[in-house]
């Protein structure tokens, strides 16, 4: 029917990729964007230098399932936390947040505690990352399932 192939298009995961601080190293995030696209997801990239407010605003407007944050400049403990704070302040619980970038092992438990999972570093297999995002998105979808019947 009109060239559409239903096998591929049932409820794709929607994901926002963002680097919410002063960090212009975007090669990695482009690689991820393509990988997520090839895994059948709808990918939005927030562009360079968005503020945490803009990230949350975009996520809400686009109604994404997952926000994927990445920083390579060491600002993750403040910038990621800002994003989480704004989400909490607005009472948004049905968007999953995952992280990645240059993140020292000692910071990972702290980020997990804030609710930011994954926190993958360089060299992680794309399939591991995609698997993790799918898992988190699945949880979110379950949460939303019967919300508006």
């Amino acid at each position, binding site marked *: *029917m009109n060239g*559409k192939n239903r096998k591929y298009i049932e409820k794709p995961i929607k994901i926002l990729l963002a680097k919410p601080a002063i960090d212009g190293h975007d090669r990695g995030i482009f690689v991820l964007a393509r990988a997520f*696209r090839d895994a059948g997801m709808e990918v939005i990239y927030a562009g360079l230098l968005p503020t945490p407010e803009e990230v949350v605003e975009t996520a809400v*407007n*686009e109604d994404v399932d997952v926000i994927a944050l990445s920083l390579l400049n060491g600002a993750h403990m403040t910038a990621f936390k800002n994003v989480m704070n704004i989400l909490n302040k607005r009472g948004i619980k049905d968007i999953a947040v995952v992280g990645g970038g240059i993140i020292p092992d000692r910071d990972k438990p702290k980020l997990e505690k804030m609710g930011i999972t994954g926190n993958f570093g360089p060299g992680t297999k794309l399939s591991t990352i995609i698997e993790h995002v799918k898992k988190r998105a699945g949880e979110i979808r379950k949460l939303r399932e019967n919300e508006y019947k």
Partner: protein
Amino acid sequence: MNINDLVRGILNGDKRSIARAISIVENSDDEQRKNIIDKIYDYGNSKIIGITGPPGVGKSTIIGNIAPMLSKSGKISILAVDPASPFSGGSILGNRIRMQENLSKYDIYMRSTSNRLYEGGLSEYSWDIIKILEASGSDFIIVETVGSGQSDIDIMNVADLTCVILAPGLGDEIQAVKSGMMEIGDVFIMNKMDREDAYISIKDIMESLQISNKPNTPVIGLNSLTLDNYESFIDFILKWNGKNTERRNIRKIRQIIIERIFTTYSVYIESVDKNKLLGKNPYDIADDIMRNLDGLKNKYLEK
């Protein structure tokens, strides 16, 4: 939160409710879509501005520029469609980056959607999404199509005002007299007027319009770097009062019926015996499937 809260949210222009309603429309079944549209159908009256044109001519940039100018005259919402990958079904929705700056500043709601492999330049549920944006109290809804080829003309069925965006260097006068996209514009915009040959390109378009059935269609040249001549485009949009509701709704009725029939029969299409597929004429197989009316009856007719 239930569906009534959601509808109330939409009518109040709450962005989170609008966003969630659009997701439901995109991702759920016919019944739930109808449920939402039923409750909001009577609300809102917006001017729907369609922006179409080949990839890279500056559609998103132009929208990013006109949205703040138009917001002096009313509330703006934007719907942008990007193509899905034919291999994975995924897509990269990149329109937002070019408008981001003005969105939060002027409190504009913008939604990027994938066309989910629907052909024609829009997505299958664009109508429903526009309806939601309309009910949210928008005065203008700007719809950006997929970067389009000559045959992507679905936007003319949806928009009240169809703007075809072009840029210099896309082809000579033979390209300009071709059918398809070059016929559907209510206005033609030549972007990138700072480029060499821009005036020749405008001349080609004007000449081909002269010998068409819409000789009075305006051609407006824009320079998106300096915002040169944008005021005449804005004037044109504000003065335009054509409505396209009839065509829009006929398109939707057609889609609903095709979808209902397809969902009913797709089960049968997928369960056709492999051996049969090789040996038998597709016409005969389709006849066999269509003869089985049970599916249709159970699902819709007996309601």
